[in-house]
């Protein structure tokens, strides 16, 4: 009879065969095959790892979670990488950890102000509202699509306690002067790196500057585990708060299948509970269940091995777009990296100029009909979204550029599933459109 090891090896080999039949050798036929803006990039190893994990049938976090968190922490350069079930959950956890009693008087409280932007993804801002704090919106700069430091400086007021910003589409914001403001005003900084895994600023990874940072592993992102995200921090109290809030708010830190990790499961007193109340059911935070399964982490372990290659491909694809757009500056505002940064680009963002002679929607619609995918810059201006009518907020400056983004900006993909042929085709389609508009001769 075959051993477990032998069976695992046989199954793994079959998975590889299956991959070769189902997923390998996909051809691109211009005009027939869609050019996606993003998507999962994988080979048989991710599926083998996923199946290997499924054979454990350990359905909560386990050996692959340990490995993935360690590798992730090492890659980013932080002490703690804590997995969760999405980048949005990571943002929620990062923010809520700053309200924890573990942080004493420095914790964020209802009514505090948090500086952010409206030109971005909703779940960078949502936790601020959900925790009854006041988002303070500042404008962004076209081209970098990041906040201007001067706008932050002007926006800081007596109630300002934190800054929560995403590195837009992988382009780091100007961290050095922002960190100066953080220190000067004793603010918390949350770096949303959901679109920026691997981006660096002055040689250092983003996600290592703020008190806590996040990333996403949704399929559009730099690596994927399907649904997933992570919180990064070097602060043990924040790490403790994150894991507690992620895990129902419990005080216990046993992992799945463990008991009495603390050694005082039935011997301590908490709150007004009777002495010896089972520590497994003591809650020191108002929490959620935002955990991932080991199977998702198994995919992540393999994706991390590919990440340096993915980052290189993204940069190469960005350069291909740059080359293709370089004579179109009369029509488009082209993207530029923040000085001192080396972005691991999530996308290639472009803004249609006011006098271009066509609208963004006309162009993106044409591209879409010709199978070239694009996306708007997420929510555009969050304050124009129905969900945000009536929220308590402060608008610290004119949001003129935010509105321009909402109206005129879109992005093309840079993900590793793109190559020269697909980008070349996309540029041909774009140029056809411009010819049709009389913009190109």
């Amino acid at each position: 009879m075959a051993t477990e090891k032998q069976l695992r090896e046989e199954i793994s080999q079959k998975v590889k065969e299956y991959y070769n039949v189902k997923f390998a050798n996909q051809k691109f036929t211009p005009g027939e095959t869609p050019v996606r803006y993003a998507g999962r990039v994988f080979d048989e190893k991710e599926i083998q790892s996923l199946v290997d994990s499924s054979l454990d049938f350990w359905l909560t976090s386990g050996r692959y979670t340990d490995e993935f968190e360690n590798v992730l922490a090492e890659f980013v350069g932080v002490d703690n990488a804590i997995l969760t079930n999405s980048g949005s959950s990571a943002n929620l956890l990062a923010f809520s950890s700053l309200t924890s009693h573990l942080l004493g008087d420095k914790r964020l409280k209802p009514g505090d102000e948090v500086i952010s932007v409206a030109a971005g993804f909703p779940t960078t801002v949502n936790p601020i509202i959900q925790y009854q704090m006041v988002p303070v919106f500042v404008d962004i700069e076209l081209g970098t699509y990041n906040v201007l430091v001067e706008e932050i400086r002007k926006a800081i007021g007596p109630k300002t306690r934190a800054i929560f910003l995403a590195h837009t589409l992988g382009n780091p914001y100007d961290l050095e002067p922002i960190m100066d403001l953080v220190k000067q005003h004793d603010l918390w900084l949350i770096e949303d790196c959901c679109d920026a895994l691997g981006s660096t600023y002055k040689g250092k990874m983003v996600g290592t500057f703020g008190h806590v940072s996040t990333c996403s592993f949704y399929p559009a992102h730099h690596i994927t585990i399907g649904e997933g995200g992570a919180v990064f921090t070097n602060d043990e109290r924040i790490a403790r708060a994150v894991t507690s809030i992620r895990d129902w708010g419990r005080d216990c830190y046993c992992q799945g299948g463990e008991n009495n990790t603390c050694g005082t499961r039935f011997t301590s007193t908490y709150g007004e509970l009777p002495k010896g109340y089972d520590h497994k059911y003591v809650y020191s935070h108002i929490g959620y269940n935002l955990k991932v399964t080991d199977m998702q982490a198994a995919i992540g372990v393999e994706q991390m091995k590919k990440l340096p290659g993915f980052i290189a491909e993204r940069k190469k694809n960005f350069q291909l777009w740059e080359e293709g757009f370089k004579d179109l500056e009369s029509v488009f505002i082209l993207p530029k990296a923040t000085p001192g940064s080396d972005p691991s680009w999530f996308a290639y963002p472009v803004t249609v100029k006011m006098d271009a002679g066509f609208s963004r929607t006309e162009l993106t619609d044409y591209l879409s009909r010709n199978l070239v995918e694009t996306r708007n810059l997420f929510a555009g201006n969050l304050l124009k979204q129905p969900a945000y009518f009536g929220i308590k907020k402060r608008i610290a400056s004119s949001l003129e550029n935010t509105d321009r983004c909402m109206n005129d900006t879109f992005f093309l993909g840079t993900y590793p599933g793109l190559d020269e042929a697909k980008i070349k085709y996309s540029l041909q389609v774009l140029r056809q459109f411009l010819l049709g508009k009389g913009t190109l001769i």
Partner: protein
Amino acid sequence: MAIIQRIKAEVIALDKVFSGVYKVVFRVPSRQNRFTPGQFAHLALDEFDQTLGFWPESRVFSISSEPKLDTLTLVYSVKGNFTRRMEAELAVGRSVWLKFPYGDFSIEYLAPAQSPLVIVAGGTGISPFIPFLSSAVRQNDSRKIHFHHGLKKNGMLIFEPELRLSSKLPGFQGVLYVEDETPRQDLDGWQTEAGRISTVAVRKSCRDLGVDTCVFLSGPPAMIDFFKNDLLDVGFSSDKIFIDSWE
């Protein structure tokens, strides 16, 4: 909580400090050796099958070395079946499974930065303070620390090099109490006293160091309760007393 590491670790040194008390040094990957001084580790003697996921029987021990090294040190006393197994089975070259870091007994997080400290450690209860002291020596920490350490016999002093170095800290005062014999006089920088740790001396330390003093107690439960109640009786604030007590 910092990422929990589950590491298969090899014993690279084993010292019998005195009857029934051992100091064990394990080789660990330095990158995974992350914890806050004061935290503890689980030690399992049986194999951990990661594919099954269930952690085997283990016991907890304070980590008594600094983080980020490629070694991790634990001290244990033989008290029950598990520690008797450890005594019988641990040898240089033997591997165990370690799982850490756990625990909240961290001076760094419990006491405000630079607040004066009174530390009371009975016997092997000194273990959780060693990483803190080593780190303080490395950083030439100037905070005021009054350290009261009690032993039954002179030969039970476990961390002599670390304690000698600690006495050189600018704000450090150490008193070694030896209960059952004449205390040794050669522990440079430390006062010595015959008998048990003195409540009078501990109270005096708290008074001398002022209202911001935090007290850390580690040792047998009875000892901890005794000192905690004594300090509360004289009006010391309970939210400035932190204990590390093992049943």
